[in-house]
């Protein structure tokens, strides 16, 4: 009887050991780098970065801005219009603060770009865009172009916009638009989405988390 009891006890101990080992092994496997969920504050990382088809737009220097322009750099892109009184200038101020934080952290600014894409090409001429983006920072890039190309790019990036009827007295019209900042990786793929409201400190922290993870 005692021997039988001992065997039973040994069996239970072994069973416990094996099951806990299996549990931890499974747990470790789940949080292996490949599947590990990145600990970001607001950034929604795409399960699989999205490759974009080519597009043909122009930057504020009248140069081509296409898929190639997004390569070998991290890009933070925002879509809006210069006559936007609130969300666009406020986001540009956040971008300006983000830029300053990156430089304070000694991050190579040549490997990052801030892109403001106009979804109101009718009013936002290249000259106007140039003055607009340079006001915030001379390194920022203003982008515009043919409506069809803007449509193509925004569709792939799931950026929405729509025009309201022009005011009869002033001729001014409002453009409703998405307010997320898009983060594109150096392979020119959509990598993460930063939803509003925007905060420079949070964006900086999330950007560094995502960038370091990507580089490793």
């Amino acid at each position, binding site marked *: 009887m005692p021997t039988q009891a001992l065997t039973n006890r040994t069996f239970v101990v072994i069973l416990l050991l094996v099951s806990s080992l299996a549990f931890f092994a499974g747990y470790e496997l789940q949080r292996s780098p490949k599947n590990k969920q990145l600990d970001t504050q607001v950034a929604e990382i795409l399960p699989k970065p999205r490759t974009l088809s080519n597009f043909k737009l122009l930057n504020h220097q009248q140069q081509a801005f296409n898929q190639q322009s997004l390569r070998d750099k991290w890009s933070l892109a925002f879509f809006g219009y210069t006559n936007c009184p609130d969300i666009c200038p406020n986001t540009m101020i956040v971008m300006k603060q983000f830029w300053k934080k990156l430089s304070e952290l000694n991050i190579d600014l040549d490997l990052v770009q801030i892109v403001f894409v106009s979804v109101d090409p009718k009013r936002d001429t290249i000259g106007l865009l140039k003055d607009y983006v340079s006001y915030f920072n001379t390194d920022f890039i203003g982008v515009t172009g043919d409506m069809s190309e803007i449509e193509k790019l925004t569709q792939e990036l799931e950026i929405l916009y729509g025009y309201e009827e022009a*005011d009869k007295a002033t001729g001014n019209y409002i453009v409703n638009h*998405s307010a997320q900042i898009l983060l594109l990786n150096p392979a020119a793929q959509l990598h993460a989405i930063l939803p509003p409201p925007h905060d420079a400190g949070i964006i900086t922290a999330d950007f560094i988390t995502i960038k370091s993870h990507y580089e490793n």
Partner: protein
Amino acid sequence: MKTRILPTLLLKLSVILSLFITSNALHATELLHIKKAYSPEAPPVVKILAGYMELHNPTSKDIVITGVSSPDFEHVEIHSMVMRDGMMHMDRQDTLVVPAKGQVNLEPGDLHVMFINKLKSFKDGDHIPLTIQMGKQSQSLSLPVRKSE
């Protein structure tokens, strides 16, 4: 000497007194207590500016704002900002209620004054005049233009 000082003193006193009375009289017509009013400086090419402020209603009755205007803009409106169908929508508010003993904040990403088509340029340190209409009553203020860093 004494006879010279007295009239000057009296004059000064009357000026101070009249100023005091005038400011009190003006204050009496101010229904709202407006705090932290400002307009962020915008790129010079931009014709549309925003205005933010805190509207406090110290009275025991709701105050209804029925319009806003500025001589330096073609048109002024109050707009709300709401996320709808994945887009930020700005909706014009024909009226805005500041509840009795309550407050309404106009702030970035939310309610704001929208100054449409400027008639002159504004930079950091300038002031934008604004008149708030509340039915038959009105109240004026000036919003300092501030550059955001």
